[in-house]
């Protein structure tokens, strides 16, 4: 049936074409036009996974006596070879014939193969590629939420460990230079000075300024003075080395923490742009971590999101001890913790409601609707602030926070 026993396959968005080495068409398979289905097929072909259509087409060529097929995709050719017997499948990029085909596609092959105008072809390819891209973007984001959860938990771990390290450092170095404790404002300043300057005798104003310019002249001279008059014990290099490496550890952990928060922010842009816009990337990441995954978060009712992170208080309340919590980790949101106590629950509820919608958008539609959600939330915050400007009259506590003595009540049937 075919003149040539070697054919060149060219893959297209709307079909597959087999050509002879002079560029004439041997056979073609034009896909039924269904953009969604084609997008899925192309995403498979792209990573080298053969589709049923492609395998069927090559088998048809084999039956017709074709002995060798060239495909312009290495991985695809290899996988086809494993599936299809009785025909040799070779890979080359580009093939001479493929080049010719693409070169003359617009002027010749397009019309010949599909019988449609360029504008219609472009419209379809655009449609297909947009769906392909959206699918890929979704996949790219898919398990990244679990990375985000780990990353935010690492940030919390680092904070715990650095606090431990910092207090050990203060206690240890404090033997040598006890006055430094009250002259620094945070662990970072403390650790940087210990690491960079070491022995108390190095604390001259100019060296301090060089080590930590942000201290400013005035504080630098106060520290220098204190060093000169210090009542601390003297120390030798060998002892000092150990302390300095601890200070270094602290500083390194801070750098890692910074990198992690940057990573989280970038990843949140990718995975949960709506949640990020609404809650900020760190709080958003905490919610994902607490829920277990972005999908789980998206399936939660707003009332659950509102108390995520307050499970202890919630279970206590369920056991009849204390009031149910009004907010969990979303308390970290500035508009909530800065609000007067009696407004917090209301604002938390409003935020949780918007977050529930944002999470669903991030998982299911991918639409960026956060600006609208944020606006609606801000409006509600204003409303709460005006309507509930004054504290409510004190009412007697519904239940005492804890019974003065005796065992907590248990509801029958519940553990």
């Amino acid at each position, binding site marked *: 049936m075919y003149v040539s026993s070697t054919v060149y396959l060219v893959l297209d968005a709307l079909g597959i074409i087999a050509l002879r080495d002079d560029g004439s068409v041997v056979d073609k398979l034009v896909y039924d036009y269904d953009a969604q289905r084609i997008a899925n097929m192309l995403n498979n072909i792209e*990573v080298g996974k053969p589709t049923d259509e492609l395998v069927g087409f090559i088998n048809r060529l084999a039956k017709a006596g074709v002995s060798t097929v060239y495909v312009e995709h290495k991985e695809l050719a290899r996988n086809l070879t494993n599936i299809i017997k009785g025909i040799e499948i070779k890979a080359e990029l580009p093939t001479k014939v493929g080049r010719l085909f693409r070169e003359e596609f617009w002027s010749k092959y397009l019309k010949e193969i599909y019988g449609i105008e360029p504008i219609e072809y472009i419209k379809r390819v655009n449609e297909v590629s947009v769906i392909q891209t959206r699918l890929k973007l979704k996949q790219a984001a898919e398990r990244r939420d679990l990375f985000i959860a780990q990353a935010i938990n690492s940030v919390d771990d680092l904070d715990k460990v650095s606090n431990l390290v910092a207090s050990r450092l203060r206690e240890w170095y404090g033997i040598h230079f006890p006055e430094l404790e009250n002259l620094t404002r945070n662990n970072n300043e403390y650790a940087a000075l210990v690491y960079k300057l070491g022995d108390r005798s190095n604390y001259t104003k100019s060296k301090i300024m060089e080590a930590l310019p942000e201290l400013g002249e005035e504080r630098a001279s106060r520290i220098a003075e204190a060093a000169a008059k210090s009542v601390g014990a003297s120390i030798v290099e060998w002892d000092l080395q150990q302390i300095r490496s601890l200070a270094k550890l602290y500083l390194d952990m801070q750098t890692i923490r910074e990198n992690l928060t940057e990573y989280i922010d*970038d990843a949140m842009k990718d995975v949960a742009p709506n949640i990020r816009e609404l809650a900020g990337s760190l709080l958003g990441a905490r919610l994902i971590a607490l829920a277990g995954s972005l999908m789980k978060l998206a399936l939660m009712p707003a009332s659950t999101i509102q108390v995520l992170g307050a499970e202890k208080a919630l279970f206590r309340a369920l056991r009849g001890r204390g009031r149910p919590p009004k907010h969990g980790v979303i308390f970290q949101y500035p508009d909530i913790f800065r609000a007067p106590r009696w407004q917090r629950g209301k604002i938390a509820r409003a935020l949780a409601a918007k977050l529930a919608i944002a999470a669903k958008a991030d998982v299911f539609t991918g639409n960026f609707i956060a600006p609208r959600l944020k606006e609606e939330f801000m409006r509600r915050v204003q409303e709460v602030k005006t309507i509930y400007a004054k504290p409510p009259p004190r009412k007697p506590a519904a239940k005492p926070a804890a019974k003065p003595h005796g065992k907590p009540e248990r509801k029958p049937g519940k553990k």
Partner: protein
Amino acid sequence: MSSVRAVDVKEHEKFKGVYWIEFEDGSTRLATRNLTPGKRVYGEQLINLGGVEYRVWNPYRSKLGAAIMNKLEVMPIGEGSKVLYLGAASGTTVSHVSDIVGLSGLIYSVEFSPRVFREFMQNIIDQGRLNVIPILADARYPEQYISLVKGVDVAYIDVAQPFQAKILADNADVYLVKGGYIILVIKAMSIDVTKEPSETFKREIDTIKERGFDIINMIHLEPYDVAHALVVGKRD
């Protein structure tokens, strides 16, 4: 944004689809005709003159814009051009190229970072630019988009990576038509006073030549961008 009124528009002396907008204070700005009237891509100014909407092309944000400001001589992209654009990012330059090539042209836009491509989808696709084919893929592996891309008149690369010239030539071998053009944005100068071309730059230019292209135009982008040059090449 300037509150100065635009008074006139002229087509660029050489390049069809590129315009100069004149303002009442005598200043002029580069612009393209908005393919999607009423819509902005990167916060650029929209200007209505004689019933046509133009988008001001900011040379500080787009290196192709900077090259035109600096008297680019050969601009292979015109109405109806088919372009393979590698390193599409969030679509700043692609948007102007899309204006220029119009609905009879086409831009295959390749970008491999999902994060920036999400923005691209919002800026370019959701805005209804039908002459753009988005491709989320790695330009180092042209076979990944073999099903989508057909012959192109111009292959453009701005991926901010070493070995761009090789990546571009590999793509051109597969997709560029005979007599087609290439455009590269290359990190050009060591930014110190000597203004010596960097080693990377020399290596990239050598690669282009070895792969059979003639360099026909080279434009430095200062003051809009101090570090890069735009290079136009051609292969017959």
